[in-house]
Protein backbone atom coordinates (compact mmCIF):
# COMPACT_ATOMS: atom_id res chain seq x y z
CA UNK A 1 0.00 0.00 0.00
CA UNK A 2 2.84 2.39 0.87
CA UNK A 3 4.43 1.34 -2.41
CA UNK A 4 1.42 2.67 -4.34
CA UNK A 5 1.41 5.86 -2.24
CA UNK A 6 5.09 6.49 -2.97
CA UNK A 7 4.55 5.63 -6.64
CA UNK A 8 1.91 8.36 -7.01
CA UNK A 9 4.06 10.86 -5.09
CA UNK A 10 7.15 10.08 -7.15
CA UNK A 11 5.24 10.17 -10.44
CA UNK A 12 3.70 13.57 -9.72
CA UNK A 13 7.07 14.98 -8.67
CA UNK A 14 8.63 13.60 -11.88
CA UNK A 15 5.77 15.03 -13.99
CA UNK A 16 6.17 18.47 -12.40
CA UNK A 17 9.87 18.49 -13.17
CA UNK A 18 9.49 17.42 -16.82
CA UNK A 19 8.91 19.86 -19.67
CA UNK A 20 5.43 21.36 -19.50
CA UNK A 21 4.86 19.98 -16.02
CA UNK A 22 4.14 23.40 -14.58
CA UNK A 23 6.37 22.93 -11.53
CA UNK A 24 8.11 26.26 -12.04
CA UNK A 25 5.04 28.10 -13.35
CA UNK A 26 3.78 29.03 -9.87
CA UNK A 27 7.20 30.36 -8.89
CA UNK A 28 7.45 32.53 -12.01
CA UNK A 29 3.92 33.87 -11.47
CA UNK A 30 4.76 34.64 -7.82
CA UNK A 31 7.86 36.53 -8.93
CA UNK A 32 5.83 38.47 -11.52
CA UNK A 33 3.23 39.64 -9.00
CA UNK A 34 5.79 40.66 -6.39
CA UNK A 35 7.90 42.50 -8.97
CA UNK A 36 4.91 44.38 -10.42
CA UNK A 37 3.47 45.64 -7.12
CA UNK A 38 6.31 48.07 -6.28
CA UNK A 39 6.00 49.58 -9.77
CA UNK A 40 2.31 50.17 -9.19
CA UNK A 41 2.72 51.62 -5.69
CA UNK A 42 5.63 53.92 -6.38
CA UNK A 43 8.83 54.45 -4.39
CA UNK A 44 7.26 54.74 -0.93
CA UNK A 45 9.42 52.28 1.01
CA UNK A 46 7.49 52.68 4.27
CA UNK A 47 4.21 51.81 2.58
CA UNK A 48 5.83 48.88 0.77
CA UNK A 49 7.34 47.36 3.86
CA UNK A 50 4.06 47.81 5.74
CA UNK A 51 2.03 45.91 3.14
CA UNK A 52 4.91 43.62 2.12
CA UNK A 53 3.66 40.52 3.99
CA UNK A 54 0.18 40.98 2.49
CA UNK A 55 1.66 41.22 -1.02
CA UNK A 56 3.74 38.09 -0.50
CA UNK A 57 0.74 36.19 0.83
CA UNK A 58 -1.58 37.34 -1.94
CA UNK A 59 1.05 36.48 -4.52
CA UNK A 60 1.53 33.02 -3.01
CA UNK A 61 -2.24 32.42 -2.85
CA UNK A 62 -2.79 33.35 -6.50
CA UNK A 63 0.26 31.38 -7.64
CA UNK A 64 -1.01 28.28 -5.88
CA UNK A 65 -4.30 28.55 -7.79
CA UNK A 66 -2.47 28.59 -11.13
CA UNK A 67 -2.48 25.14 -12.63
CA UNK A 68 -4.46 23.69 -9.72
CA UNK A 69 -7.30 22.78 -12.10
CA UNK A 70 -5.01 20.20 -13.74
CA UNK A 71 -4.38 18.37 -10.46
CA UNK A 72 -7.06 15.72 -11.09
CA UNK A 73 -8.35 16.80 -14.51
CA UNK A 74 -5.18 15.67 -16.28
CA UNK A 75 -5.48 12.24 -14.67
CA UNK A 76 -9.18 12.06 -15.47
CA UNK A 77 -8.62 12.89 -19.15
CA UNK A 78 -5.85 10.42 -19.86
CA UNK A 79 -7.32 7.56 -17.82
CA UNK A 80 -4.70 7.61 -15.05
CA UNK A 81 -7.51 8.14 -12.56
CA UNK A 82 -8.99 4.76 -13.57
CA UNK A 83 -5.59 3.27 -12.84
CA UNK A 84 -5.59 4.93 -9.40
CA UNK A 85 -9.14 3.71 -8.79
CA UNK A 86 -8.00 0.22 -9.78
CA UNK A 87 -5.28 0.13 -7.14
CA UNK A 88 -5.91 -1.27 -3.69
CA UNK A 89 -4.83 2.09 -2.25
CA UNK A 90 -7.80 3.92 -0.70
CA UNK A 91 -8.68 6.95 -2.78
CA UNK A 92 -8.08 9.17 0.27
CA UNK A 93 -4.42 8.16 0.39
CA UNK A 94 -4.07 8.67 -3.35
CA UNK A 95 -5.44 12.20 -2.90
CA UNK A 96 -3.06 12.75 0.01
CA UNK A 97 -0.12 11.70 -2.18
CA UNK A 98 -1.22 14.02 -4.98
CA UNK A 99 -1.83 16.95 -2.60
CA UNK A 100 1.54 16.40 -0.97
CA UNK A 101 3.24 16.36 -4.38
CA UNK A 102 1.39 19.57 -5.31
CA UNK A 103 2.62 21.27 -2.14
CA UNK A 104 6.20 20.04 -2.61
CA UNK A 105 6.29 21.43 -6.15
CA UNK A 106 4.44 24.74 -5.56
CA UNK A 107 3.97 25.71 -1.88
CA UNK A 108 7.43 24.71 -0.69
CA UNK A 109 9.35 26.56 -3.45
CA UNK A 110 7.17 29.65 -2.86
CA UNK A 111 7.97 29.63 0.86
CA UNK A 112 11.67 29.17 0.15
CA UNK A 113 11.66 32.02 -2.39
CA UNK A 114 9.77 34.38 -0.06
CA UNK A 115 12.82 35.79 1.77
CA UNK A 116 14.42 36.63 -1.57
CA UNK A 117 11.27 38.30 -2.90
CA UNK A 118 10.86 40.07 0.45
CA UNK A 119 13.76 42.28 -0.65
CA UNK A 120 11.61 43.61 -3.50
CA UNK A 121 8.89 44.79 -1.11
CA UNK A 122 11.40 46.31 1.37
CA UNK A 123 10.63 43.73 4.06
CA UNK A 124 12.86 44.37 7.13
CA UNK A 125 15.56 41.76 7.63
CA UNK A 126 14.16 40.42 10.89
CA UNK A 127 10.75 39.75 9.26
CA UNK A 128 12.12 37.60 6.40
CA UNK A 129 12.24 34.32 8.28
CA UNK A 130 8.86 34.70 10.05
CA UNK A 131 7.14 35.52 6.74
CA UNK A 132 8.76 32.50 5.09
CA UNK A 133 7.69 30.39 8.08
CA UNK A 134 4.05 31.51 7.78
CA UNK A 135 4.09 30.57 4.09
CA UNK A 136 5.73 27.25 4.90
CA UNK A 137 3.00 26.21 7.33
CA UNK A 138 0.13 28.01 5.56
CA UNK A 139 0.56 26.80 1.96
CA UNK A 140 -0.34 23.14 2.72
CA UNK A 141 -3.83 24.44 3.59
CA UNK A 142 -4.02 26.09 0.16
CA UNK A 143 -2.89 22.88 -1.60
CA UNK A 144 -5.51 20.74 0.12
CA UNK A 145 -8.42 23.21 -0.02
CA UNK A 146 -7.50 23.51 -3.68
CA UNK A 147 -7.41 19.72 -4.07
CA UNK A 148 -11.04 19.50 -2.94
CA UNK A 149 -12.00 22.12 -5.53
CA UNK A 150 -9.90 20.42 -8.20
CA UNK A 151 -11.59 17.09 -7.51
CA UNK A 152 -15.02 18.69 -7.86
CA UNK A 153 -14.12 20.22 -11.22
CA UNK A 154 -12.10 17.24 -12.53
CA UNK A 155 -14.81 16.20 -14.96
CA UNK A 156 -15.63 19.68 -16.26
CA UNK A 157 -14.23 20.82 -19.58
CA UNK A 158 -13.57 24.41 -18.49
CA UNK A 159 -13.00 23.69 -14.82
CA UNK A 160 -10.08 26.09 -14.77
CA UNK A 161 -12.45 29.05 -14.77
CA UNK A 162 -14.73 27.94 -11.99
CA UNK A 163 -12.03 26.58 -9.71
CA UNK A 164 -10.62 29.91 -8.37
CA UNK A 165 -14.17 31.16 -7.75
CA UNK A 166 -14.90 28.00 -5.80
CA UNK A 167 -11.66 27.85 -3.86
CA UNK A 168 -10.77 31.49 -3.15
CA UNK A 169 -13.51 32.12 -0.54
CA UNK A 170 -12.43 29.04 1.39
CA UNK A 171 -8.87 30.32 1.61
CA UNK A 172 -9.86 33.57 3.36
CA UNK A 173 -9.14 32.30 6.92
CA UNK A 174 -5.71 31.08 5.85
CA UNK A 175 -4.99 34.46 4.27
CA UNK A 176 -6.15 36.38 7.35
CA UNK A 177 -4.10 34.41 9.84
CA UNK A 178 -1.11 34.10 7.51
CA UNK A 179 -0.87 37.84 7.01
CA UNK A 180 -1.59 38.66 10.66
CA UNK A 181 1.15 36.27 11.80
CA UNK A 182 3.54 37.85 9.32
CA UNK A 183 2.54 41.34 10.51
CA UNK A 184 2.96 40.30 14.13
CA UNK A 185 6.56 39.46 13.31
CA UNK A 186 7.03 43.07 12.13
CA UNK A 187 5.96 44.44 15.53
CA UNK A 188 2.62 45.26 17.08
CA UNK A 189 0.74 44.15 20.11
CA UNK A 190 -0.12 40.52 19.22
CA UNK A 191 2.60 37.94 19.86
CA UNK A 192 3.74 36.09 16.71
CA UNK A 193 2.80 32.67 18.07
CA UNK A 194 -0.95 33.37 18.46
CA UNK A 195 -1.94 33.74 14.78
CA UNK A 196 0.91 31.40 13.76
CA UNK A 197 -0.48 28.49 15.79
CA UNK A 198 -3.97 29.10 14.42
CA UNK A 199 -2.44 29.00 10.94
CA UNK A 200 -0.82 25.65 11.77
CA UNK A 201 -4.19 24.37 12.97
CA UNK A 202 -5.90 25.58 9.79
CA UNK A 203 -3.35 23.69 7.69
CA UNK A 204 -3.75 20.47 9.65
CA UNK A 205 -7.54 20.70 9.44
CA UNK A 206 -7.38 21.48 5.71
CA UNK A 207 -5.16 18.45 5.05
CA UNK A 208 -7.70 16.13 6.68
CA UNK A 209 -10.92 17.76 5.42
CA UNK A 210 -9.54 18.55 1.95
CA UNK A 211 -8.35 14.95 1.47
CA UNK A 212 -11.67 13.45 2.53
CA UNK A 213 -13.68 15.96 0.50
CA UNK A 214 -11.60 15.43 -2.65
CA UNK A 215 -11.83 11.64 -2.38
CA UNK A 216 -15.60 11.88 -1.93
CA UNK A 217 -15.90 14.16 -4.94
CA UNK A 218 -13.83 11.79 -7.10
CA UNK A 219 -15.94 8.84 -5.97
CA UNK A 220 -19.18 10.47 -7.00
CA UNK A 221 -18.20 10.20 -10.63
CA UNK A 222 -20.86 11.35 -13.02
Amino acid at each position, binding site marked *: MSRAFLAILRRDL*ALASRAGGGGELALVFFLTIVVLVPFALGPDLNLLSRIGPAILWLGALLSMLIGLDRLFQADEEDGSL*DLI*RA*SMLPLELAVLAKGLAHWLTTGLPLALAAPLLGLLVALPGEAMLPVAATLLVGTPALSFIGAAGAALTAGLRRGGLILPVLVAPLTVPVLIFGVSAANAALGGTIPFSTPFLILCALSLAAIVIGTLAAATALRQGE
Partner: protein
Amino acid sequence: MTQFSFPKLAIEAGNLACRRGGRLIFEGLAFRLGTGEAIALTGRNGAGKSSLLAMLCGRLRPDAGTIRIDGAPEIAPIELSHVVGHRDGLKTALTAQENLAFAQALLGDVALSPAEALAVVGLPHVAALPVGYLSAGQRRRVALARLLVSRRPFWLLDEPMSALDLAAQDMLSGLMRAHLADGGAILAATHGPLGLDGARELRIGP
Protein backbone atom coordinates in the same frame (compact mmCIF):
# COMPACT_ATOMS: atom_id res chain seq x y z
CA MET B 1 6.92 -21.07 -16.23
CA THR B 2 4.79 -22.63 -13.55
CA GLN B 3 1.14 -23.02 -14.23
CA PHE B 4 -0.72 -20.12 -12.67
CA SER B 5 -4.42 -20.06 -12.06
CA PHE B 6 -6.72 -17.30 -10.88
CA PRO B 7 -9.21 -17.96 -8.08
CA LYS B 8 -12.79 -18.66 -9.12
CA LEU B 9 -14.55 -15.30 -9.25
CA ALA B 10 -17.19 -13.74 -11.45
CA ILE B 11 -18.42 -10.26 -12.21
CA GLU B 12 -22.20 -10.25 -11.95
CA ALA B 13 -24.23 -7.41 -13.36
CA GLY B 14 -27.98 -7.35 -13.02
CA ASN B 15 -30.69 -5.15 -14.52
CA LEU B 16 -28.25 -2.37 -15.43
CA ALA B 17 -29.56 0.88 -16.82
CA CYS B 18 -27.53 3.75 -18.15
CA ARG B 19 -28.60 7.35 -18.61
CA ARG B 20 -26.36 9.98 -20.18
CA GLY B 21 -27.47 13.59 -20.32
CA GLY B 22 -31.01 12.61 -19.33
CA ARG B 23 -31.35 10.16 -22.24
CA LEU B 24 -31.79 6.46 -21.55
CA ILE B 25 -28.97 4.59 -23.32
CA PHE B 26 -29.82 1.04 -22.29
CA GLU B 27 -31.72 -0.78 -19.56
CA GLY B 28 -32.27 -4.28 -18.29
CA LEU B 29 -28.75 -5.37 -19.14
CA ALA B 30 -27.51 -8.41 -17.25
CA PHE B 31 -24.47 -10.62 -17.66
CA ARG B 32 -22.13 -12.85 -15.74
CA LEU B 33 -18.44 -13.00 -16.52
CA GLY B 34 -16.73 -15.93 -14.81
CA THR B 35 -13.28 -17.50 -14.86
CA GLY B 36 -12.02 -18.57 -18.24
CA GLU B 37 -14.80 -16.73 -20.06
CA ALA B 38 -14.64 -14.01 -22.66
CA ILE B 39 -17.41 -11.65 -23.67
CA ALA B 40 -17.34 -9.61 -26.85
CA LEU B 41 -19.40 -6.52 -26.21
CA THR B 42 -20.97 -5.31 -29.43
CA GLY B 43 -23.46 -2.71 -30.52
CA ARG B 44 -23.73 0.26 -32.83
CA ASN B 45 -21.90 3.51 -32.09
CA GLY B 46 -23.40 5.20 -29.07
CA ALA B 47 -25.11 2.03 -27.82
CA GLY B 48 -23.36 2.41 -24.47
CA LYS B 49 -20.40 0.01 -24.71
CA SER B 50 -17.92 2.48 -23.27
CA SER B 51 -20.50 3.60 -20.70
CA LEU B 52 -20.85 0.01 -19.51
CA LEU B 53 -17.08 -0.23 -19.12
CA ALA B 54 -17.08 3.11 -17.27
CA MET B 55 -19.65 1.66 -14.86
CA LEU B 56 -17.46 -1.37 -14.26
CA CYS B 57 -14.59 1.07 -13.55
CA GLY B 58 -16.67 3.00 -11.04
CA ARG B 59 -16.30 6.14 -13.12
CA LEU B 60 -20.01 6.19 -13.99
CA ARG B 61 -22.84 5.30 -11.67
CA PRO B 62 -25.54 3.02 -13.07
CA ASP B 63 -28.98 4.58 -13.24
CA ALA B 64 -30.34 1.30 -11.92
CA GLY B 65 -29.07 -2.20 -11.23
CA THR B 66 -26.03 -3.65 -9.51
CA ILE B 67 -22.51 -4.74 -10.34
CA ARG B 68 -20.70 -6.99 -7.92
CA ILE B 69 -18.09 -9.68 -7.64
CA ASP B 70 -19.58 -13.11 -6.99
CA GLY B 71 -17.36 -14.69 -4.36
CA ALA B 72 -16.03 -11.39 -2.98
CA PRO B 73 -18.93 -8.92 -2.79
CA GLU B 74 -16.96 -6.46 -0.62
CA ILE B 75 -14.44 -5.79 -3.40
CA ALA B 76 -15.19 -3.31 -6.18
CA PRO B 77 -14.77 -4.99 -9.61
CA ILE B 78 -12.23 -2.36 -10.62
CA GLU B 79 -9.84 -3.53 -7.89
CA LEU B 80 -9.55 -6.92 -9.57
CA SER B 81 -9.43 -5.57 -13.12
CA HIS B 82 -7.13 -4.21 -15.75
CA VAL B 83 -8.60 -1.44 -17.86
CA VAL B 84 -7.34 -0.49 -21.31
CA GLY B 85 -9.50 1.94 -23.21
CA HIS B 86 -9.43 5.04 -25.32
CA ARG B 87 -8.06 6.92 -22.36
CA ASP B 88 -4.93 4.84 -22.21
CA GLY B 89 -3.74 5.89 -18.75
CA LEU B 90 -0.30 6.82 -20.04
CA LYS B 91 1.51 10.04 -19.16
CA THR B 92 3.07 11.51 -22.29
CA ALA B 93 5.94 13.13 -20.37
CA LEU B 94 7.04 9.83 -18.80
CA THR B 95 8.88 7.05 -20.61
CA ALA B 96 7.20 3.75 -21.46
CA GLN B 97 9.29 2.07 -18.77
CA GLU B 98 8.28 4.67 -16.13
CA ASN B 99 4.60 4.41 -17.07
CA LEU B 100 4.65 0.64 -16.68
CA ALA B 101 6.65 0.75 -13.44
CA PHE B 102 4.08 3.20 -12.06
CA ALA B 103 1.20 0.95 -13.07
CA GLN B 104 2.93 -2.04 -11.51
CA ALA B 105 3.53 -0.24 -8.21
CA LEU B 106 -0.08 0.93 -8.20
CA LEU B 107 -1.77 -2.33 -9.18
CA GLY B 108 0.43 -4.78 -7.24
CA ASP B 109 0.49 -8.55 -7.87
CA VAL B 110 3.74 -8.30 -9.80
CA ALA B 111 4.00 -10.51 -12.89
CA LEU B 112 6.47 -9.52 -15.62
CA SER B 113 8.92 -6.64 -15.22
CA PRO B 114 8.22 -3.57 -17.36
CA ALA B 115 11.14 -4.42 -19.66
CA GLU B 116 9.91 -8.00 -20.15
CA ALA B 117 6.36 -6.81 -20.81
CA LEU B 118 7.58 -4.35 -23.43
CA ALA B 119 9.53 -7.14 -25.09
CA VAL B 120 6.39 -9.30 -25.23
CA VAL B 121 4.41 -6.54 -26.99
CA GLY B 122 7.29 -6.04 -29.39
CA LEU B 123 8.54 -2.67 -28.18
CA PRO B 124 11.80 -3.35 -26.31
CA HIS B 125 13.47 -0.43 -28.07
CA VAL B 126 11.09 2.31 -26.86
CA ALA B 127 11.47 1.69 -23.12
CA ALA B 128 13.43 4.91 -22.57
CA LEU B 129 11.32 7.09 -24.90
CA PRO B 130 8.66 9.45 -23.53
CA VAL B 131 5.27 8.05 -24.54
CA GLY B 132 4.41 11.37 -26.21
CA TYR B 133 6.82 10.47 -29.03
CA LEU B 134 5.15 7.16 -29.82
CA SER B 135 2.62 6.49 -32.56
CA ALA B 136 -1.00 5.63 -31.73
CA GLY B 137 -0.37 1.92 -32.27
CA GLN B 138 2.78 1.94 -30.17
CA ARG B 139 0.96 3.75 -27.37
CA ARG B 140 -1.78 1.15 -27.49
CA ARG B 141 0.85 -1.59 -27.22
CA VAL B 142 2.43 0.10 -24.19
CA ALA B 143 -1.03 0.32 -22.59
CA LEU B 144 -1.55 -3.39 -23.36
CA ALA B 145 1.82 -4.19 -21.79
CA ARG B 146 0.21 -3.03 -18.55
CA LEU B 147 -1.91 -6.21 -18.65
CA LEU B 148 1.29 -8.17 -18.22
CA VAL B 149 3.13 -6.27 -15.48
CA SER B 150 0.62 -7.16 -12.80
CA ARG B 151 -1.71 -10.08 -12.52
CA ARG B 152 -5.43 -9.36 -12.38
CA PRO B 153 -8.25 -11.80 -13.19
CA PHE B 154 -10.48 -9.43 -15.19
CA TRP B 155 -9.42 -7.58 -18.32
CA LEU B 156 -11.81 -4.81 -19.35
CA LEU B 157 -10.85 -3.68 -22.83
CA ASP B 158 -12.40 -0.96 -24.97
CA GLU B 159 -11.70 -1.47 -28.68
CA PRO B 160 -8.42 -3.26 -27.90
CA MET B 161 -7.65 -3.91 -31.58
CA SER B 162 -7.92 -0.28 -32.67
CA ALA B 163 -4.70 1.25 -34.03
CA LEU B 164 -2.94 -2.14 -33.92
CA ASP B 165 -1.32 -3.64 -37.02
CA LEU B 166 -2.10 -7.25 -38.03
CA ALA B 167 0.92 -8.71 -36.22
CA ALA B 168 0.00 -6.85 -33.05
CA GLN B 169 -3.61 -8.02 -33.34
CA ASP B 170 -2.37 -11.63 -33.47
CA MET B 171 -0.09 -10.92 -30.51
CA LEU B 172 -3.04 -9.54 -28.51
CA SER B 173 -5.23 -12.52 -29.42
CA GLY B 174 -2.44 -14.79 -28.17
CA LEU B 175 -2.19 -12.84 -24.90
CA MET B 176 -5.95 -13.05 -24.41
CA ARG B 177 -6.00 -16.81 -25.07
CA ALA B 178 -3.17 -17.30 -22.54
CA HIS B 179 -5.06 -15.19 -20.01
CA LEU B 180 -8.22 -17.26 -20.47
CA ALA B 181 -6.18 -20.46 -20.13
CA ASP B 182 -4.90 -19.15 -16.77
CA GLY B 183 -8.49 -18.81 -15.60
CA GLY B 184 -8.76 -15.10 -16.29
CA ALA B 185 -11.77 -13.41 -17.84
CA ILE B 186 -12.10 -10.80 -20.57
CA LEU B 187 -14.78 -8.28 -21.43
CA ALA B 188 -13.92 -6.48 -24.64
CA ALA B 189 -15.99 -3.89 -26.44
CA THR B 190 -15.29 -4.44 -30.10
CA HIS B 191 -16.52 -4.01 -33.67
CA GLY B 192 -14.17 -6.56 -35.20
CA PRO B 193 -13.18 -10.15 -34.43
CA LEU B 194 -11.16 -10.74 -31.27
CA GLY B 195 -9.55 -13.96 -32.45
CA LEU B 196 -11.07 -15.92 -29.57
CA ASP B 197 -13.04 -19.07 -30.31
CA GLY B 198 -15.13 -19.34 -27.17
CA ALA B 199 -16.11 -15.70 -26.83
CA ARG B 200 -19.77 -15.03 -26.13
CA GLU B 201 -21.39 -12.04 -27.72
CA LEU B 202 -23.21 -9.52 -25.56
CA ARG B 203 -25.07 -7.13 -27.78
CA ILE B 204 -26.35 -3.82 -26.46
CA GLY B 205 -29.31 -2.33 -28.29
CA PRO B 206 -30.73 -3.51 -31.62
